[in-house]
């Protein structure tokens, strides 16, 4: 590392979240945390470790199992001047809180003609890791069409830090989607209090044969697939979406225009998913292009290890999809 390079520290994803929160709470007394087991336990994934000890029970509040009121209170407090983060341990249970989030929070600025707005961050953990049909869902695609909602989804420790800062700065409701399998991953996080800008995707890996557009844990799957494909001489470009609403279509489109092939990868269900949306928007930008989309098999995600693995998108799925896409001539009318 050159002496002028920005300094950074290797942190676990979960530590990067805790650091962003600690800094925000030091800087702004309006930042409070509401969630189940966020207090002395420090969060189901230790992503709130140390905050209760530092900031006390008034600012780091353990809550009962009451997701509707948790988010309602967070949104209401935000509208009245605080900047709360509400932690929903499993994204599945965002369902219980969609009413305050979507029917109130997302519409507040609009319906009051700008008099009120709700700078609340709802942090929800998506992804499957052995916990069964009701603790494993990735529901991002439901949220990206809600006017007034911003949705971000970091894929690594640096973005976990930088997007959390940006989400807490944002003057409207943000859903911050993390992933069970990312918490124990480590990465270099800049020591400076940098933000990852909302609304901007980034190219994680350069390649000129195919573009893989994905987010969150999908970036790690894509990277493993790209490694395998590189051994065959296929160079994949990986675009990490980072923000899902608003989507940075331009970055995906310009990569896809260059590579001529687009594979989308998400852990959620495919129908009306992010892949469908990206394919539409990219084709709208650059015209016909070969596209394949990858997501979960159309089934609930069992906690059974074998069934879960068979349901989730895999490295192999990506490898096969890229290979098949490239076997097709670019002008082939069948873009399956």
């Amino acid at each position, binding site marked *: 590392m050159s002496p002028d390079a920005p300094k950074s520290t290797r942190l676990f994803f979960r530590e990067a979240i805790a650091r962003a929160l600690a800094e925000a709470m030091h800087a702004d007394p*309006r930042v*409070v945390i509401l969630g189940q087991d966020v207090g002395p336990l420090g969060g189901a994934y230790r992503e709130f470790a140390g905050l209760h000890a530092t900031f006390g029970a*008034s*600012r780091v509040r353990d*809550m*009962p199992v*009451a997701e*509707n*009121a948790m*988010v*309602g*209170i*967070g*949104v*209401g*407090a*935000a*509208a*009245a*001047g*605080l900047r*709360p983060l509400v932690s929903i341990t499993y994204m599945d249970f965002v369902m219980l809180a969609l*009413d*305050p989030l979507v*029917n*109130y929070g997302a519409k507040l*600025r*609009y*319906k*009051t*003609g*700008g*008099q*009120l*707005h709700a700078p609340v961050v709802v942090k929800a953990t998506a992804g499957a890791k052995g916990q069964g049909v009701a603790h494993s869902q990735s529901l991002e695609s439901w949220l990206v069409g809600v*006017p*007034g*909602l*911003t949705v971000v989804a970091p894929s690594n420790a640096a973005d976990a830090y930088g997007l959390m800062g940006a989400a807490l700065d944002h003057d*409207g409701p943000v859903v911050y989607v993390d992933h069970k399998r990312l918490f124990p991953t480590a990465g270099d996080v800049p020591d400076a209090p940098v933000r990852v800008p909302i609304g901007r995707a980034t190219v994680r890996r350069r390649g000129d044969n195919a573009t893989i557009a994905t987010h969150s844990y999908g970036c790690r799957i894509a990277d493993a697939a790209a490694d395998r494909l590189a051994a065959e001489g296929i160079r994949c470009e990986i675009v990490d979406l980072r923000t899902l609403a608003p989507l940075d279509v331009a970055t995906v489109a310009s990569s896809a225009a260059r590579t001529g092939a687009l594979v989308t990868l998400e852990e959620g269900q495919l129908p009306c998913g992010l892949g469908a949306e990206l394919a539409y928007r990219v084709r709208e930008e650059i015209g016909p292009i070969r596209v394949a989309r990858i997501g979960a098999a159309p089934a609930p995600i069992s906690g059974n290890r074998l069934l879960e693995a068979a349901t989730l998108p895999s490295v192999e799925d990506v490898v096969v999809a890229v290979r098949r896409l490239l076997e097709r001539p670019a002008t082939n009318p069948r873009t399956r």
Partner: protein
Amino acid sequence: MSRLALLRSMLAIRAFEDALAVHPECGFQLLSSGEEALAVGVCAALTSDDQLLSSGRSIGPALARGLDPGAVMAELLGRATGPCKGKGGRGHLAQPSAGFFGAHAVVGGNLSIAAGVALAMQVERRPGIVVCIFGDGACGAGALHETLNLAALWKLPLLFACDNNGWSISTPRARALAPRRLSDLATPFGIPAVTVDGMDVLAVRDATQRFAERARAGEGPAFLEGVTERFATHSTATRETRSADEMAAIRARCPIRRLAATLERDGELDAAGLARLERDAADAALRAVRFAEASPPADIAEIARDVA
């Protein structure tokens, strides 16, 4: 607030709604007529530090809180001069700068929001308290339970004000809700609760005052149930399901006539005085209508503003 001021406030709501209901652009509205005493009695106990939230039946609460009738009428009739620029309408009327944090048309949906506003006041040690007016219908919703529990745990400066008009659209309270008194719902949480005659504005005011003092002193939430009557159909678009006889009995409980009678008995008002107050209220309502009518409609460009 003097008893005469309470009467004026109730008359203002009644006249406002009478004018609105016959307006050609009235559209879909939920009227508060019959239930004025609940809103007026509650608001009489509030200061400018406080915030009020309501259900979609928001006209009474908004006017009782002191919002400008012209601006409210403009909002209801979709004019740009409404506090929400005509975008919110009845169901989402709001003017937080005037202490009315707003209506929310989701039944029970404003309860946890109100608790959040109360939490913000508590955390920032601001002087105000929060009142949430909701219907008996909201008492079937789990949101009430979740919010009561958290308000009690955290001793939030929050008053739950249940406007129990006995109906959720066409469903009588007894067919929707098992509790004998709705205020009983607060008891398991250790929240002080009382049921009063919601047609008696003085009883509502006094009960609110007591609870408000507790809340201001940091002693936490309370639950006030006022038993009221809805004079109109559920909404201006809903058919009436109650019989003419029922309606006659209901209208006989008019909270305005009741307070006026008390004041007459006590020699503070006579028939001429009441007529004058009624005329004043009707004039004010007419001015509100005129203001709204003279205002431009909501700007269509607003659909792209204040979205995110």
